[in-house]
């Protein structure tokens, strides 16, 4: 069936056909025809953010918490350039989002027209793919293809740039059902390679699963299969920041997060293992530390849907290109059919070693009765929200790491954080996107005051749509993570890492008609958190915490996994000049 309609109408029709329920956007001259169509219908809800960067992060939060693609709509020129940080963030973290940008009419492209920007050129390196649509006849199929590309293979952000005349003109609408795409990344892993891995698993004495965001990307089935595999083999499992929740924190074989601020037992196990099985993680430098000292005695296998991830940073012995769920299913089948063999004796010795590392209790910290320790605040947040239908987003910095360390995630898609780009200002708008996807859930953004200020304009969005998001700000009046590095690496010269002239967060919230809570006494903390949870609307929670707390454990830049700093006592002169050039 072909239908004639305007380009603007096609946009809305295609989004409906793709099952889109909500889009995040901000209008402007170059998208007015689309806004007209949005006005004329009620199926798709448009959320008016207060800055285009926030629209993109909200779409990311929506996507990560649902497994569905997120959609944002922005105008040409400044609208599009404001979206660039969000696009880059989504590219780094493999988040499927579709960003529609308005463009000046085709006949004015290239003339430095009002609010013209080379959106395709600017966003080419920060999208998985992008399209400039010059003919209305091609618009609907381009949108269908964009959804397909964003969500297939390794997910990522895409941009569709739509000139205003294309929105006004009439063309043929192509149904989603008829869309065929050439882009079909491979999902099934190579059976020979899977067999090699199974054999390695059968004989390994010190194996470890190192899992990542790819398990979340692959969908709920992947997490289920992972749980089955881990519990059936009895191998220990650690995860990156991006993969938290794929295996439950309460699981018997869970070692906690690994990496620069990961747990001692996780990092030591990675260093000393004899078989490392990477499932949907990308050997990021926060994980590997010094490459030539990375897990020196292990054989390594890597399951990843993106061939370029394999052997990119760490050379592996077995690379399996495929989707996590597909590969794990085959892996389990083969392993079971061969009699579920593992080296039980080796494993039990391995768990004994791990038990010794666990005894270090690397997350212990010195609590205080006078000031609120940030770790304590997160611990209490965990205790008081445990078991609830809870989603967590974060900003970037120390608080992000404390949230990763002290909060427990039992399920995938419950943890939204900016890992690869490390975008301060991500968490607040992301919480908006999550709350829209899960209206009845408890959505908390664990924030640092500096990051939070970067997108605090979203208080307007939250107030307008009465989104009950909780902004849990660990306020140390410092750019804490920067300050920590300056302390360790730059002779305690705290250059520009002060949060000066901070607002009164309670009054700021109140100015938007939102509830504000301030808490500075550890004795009041539980009651204050409960007040936040029980308040039916949005809350800005200003939690005044210890100002100079450092985040441990920490693997200093340029050091191997087994040279971790566990507390203040370890920090003197630790990072050599070589490490100092690393970020």
């Amino acid at each position, binding site marked *: 069936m072909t239908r004639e309609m305007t380009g603007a109408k096609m946009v809305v029709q295609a989004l409906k056909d793709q099952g889109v329920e909500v889009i995040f956007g901000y209008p402007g001259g170059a998208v007015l025809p689309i806004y007209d169509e949005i006005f004329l219908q009620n199926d798709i809800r448009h959320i008016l953010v207060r800055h285009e960067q926030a629209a993109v992060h909200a779409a990311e939060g929506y996507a990560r918490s649902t497994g569905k693609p997120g959609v944002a709509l922005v105008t040409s020129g400044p609208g599009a350039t404001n979206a660039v940080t969000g696009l880059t963030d989504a590219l780094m973290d493999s988040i499927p989002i579709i960003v529609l940008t308005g463009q000046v009419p085709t006949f004015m492209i290239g003339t430095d027209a009002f609010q013209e920007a080379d959106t*395709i*050129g600017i966003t*080419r*390196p920060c999208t*998985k*793919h992008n399209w*400039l649509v010059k003919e209305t006849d091609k618009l609907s199929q381009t949108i269908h293809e964009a959804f397909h*590309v964003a969500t297939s*293979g*390794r997910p990522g952000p895409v941009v569709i740039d739509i000139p205003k005349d294309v929105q006004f003109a009439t063309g043929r609408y192509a149904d989603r059902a008829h869309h065929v795409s*050439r*882009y079909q990344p491979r999902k099934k892993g*190579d059976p*020979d*390679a899977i067999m*090699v891995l199974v054999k390695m698993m059968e004989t390994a004495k010190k194996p470890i699963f190192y899992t990542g965001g790819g398990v979340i990307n692959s969908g709920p089935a992947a997490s289920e299969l992972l749980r089955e595999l881990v519990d059936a083999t009895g191998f220990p499992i650690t995860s990156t920041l991006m993969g938290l929740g794929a295996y439950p924190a309460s699981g018997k074989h869970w070692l906690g997060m690994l990496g620069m601020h990961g747990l001692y037992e996780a990092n030591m196990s990675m260093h000393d293992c004899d078989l490392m099985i990477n499932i949907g993680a990308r050997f990021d430098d926060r994980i590997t530390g010094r490459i030539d000292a990375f897990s020196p005695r292990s054989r390594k296998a890597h399951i990843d849907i*993106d*061939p*370029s991830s*394999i*052997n*990119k940073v760490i*050379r*592996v*012995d*077995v*690379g*399996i*290109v495929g989707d996590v769920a597909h590969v794990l299913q085959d892996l389990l089948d083969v392993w079971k059919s061969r009699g579920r063999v593992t080296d039980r004796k080796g494993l039990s010795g391995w768990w004994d070693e791990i038990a010794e590392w666990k005894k270090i209790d690397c997350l212990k910290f010195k609590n205080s009765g006078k000031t609120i320790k940030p770790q304590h605040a997160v611990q209490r947040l965990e205790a008081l929200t445990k078991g609830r239908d809870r989603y967590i987003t974060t900003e970037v910095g120390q608080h992000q790491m404390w949230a990763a360390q002290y909060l427990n995630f039992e399920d995938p898609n419950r943890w939204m954080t900016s890992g690869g780009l490390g975008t301060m200002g991500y968490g607040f708008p992301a919480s908006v996107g999550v709350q829209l996807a899960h209206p009845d859930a408890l959505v908390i953004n664990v924030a640092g005051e500096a990051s939070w200020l970067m997108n605090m304009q979203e208080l307007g969005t939250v107030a307008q749509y009465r989104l009950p998001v909780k902004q849990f700000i660990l306020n140390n009046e410092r750019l804490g993570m920067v300050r920590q590095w300056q302390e360790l690496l730059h002779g305690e010269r705290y250059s520009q890492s002060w949060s000066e002239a901070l607002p009164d967060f309670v009054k700021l919230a109140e100015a938007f008609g939102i509830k504000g809570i301030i808490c500075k006494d550890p004795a009041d903390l539980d009651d204050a958190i409960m007040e936040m949870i029980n308040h039916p609307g949005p809350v800005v929670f200003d939690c005044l915490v210890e100002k100079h707390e450092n985040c441990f454990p920490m693997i200093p830049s340029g050091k191997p996994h087994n040279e971790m700093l566990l507390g203040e006592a370890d920090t003197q002169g630790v990072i050599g000049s070589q490490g100092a050039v690393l970020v």
Partner: protein
Amino acid sequence: MSALNIKKGSTSHSAYNLRDTHSDKIERHTLAVVVENEPGVLARVIGLFSGRGYNIESLTVAEIDHEGHRSRITIVTSGTPHVIDQIEAQLGRIVPVHEVHDLTAAGSAVERELALFKVGGKGDARVEALRLADIFRANVVDSTLESFVFEITGTSDKIDAFAELMRPLGLIDVARTGVAALSRGAYK
């Protein structure tokens, strides 16, 4: 040659390759990249090389299948075996890229480049230029009393050699197309 130095491309599936990707010897490889002929695709390929710090020694592009909207980009690049593998994988993930062939890894390929040389001069130099052009099987495609334009095809090495010879004889300008290459034999 180490035992691991098994010829490139000898493992067809990506499962576990036997190539010595630890080697840090710089190799020169010719890649054939078949792409969807759509706007911006060349920019994507070039952006990949500049963005990730890979070298481009030469690059040619032209449509090869009008009906099927296919273009072929031939890239000569250099890097360690590990970098070459990454380049191939990174090219492969560009959405409008259909195929990537490492012609160097697949065995010897036929590689040709076309160049135009403008050589000015009078007297003996002029005669010598013409004589050398003949030896190199270059054609004269334009001549004035004071200049020739030679057209020459061949491997890049041959063209380099011709350029060296022309330089002292009054070389005015050169235009080179970059390498076009195909694998030998009856298959792709």
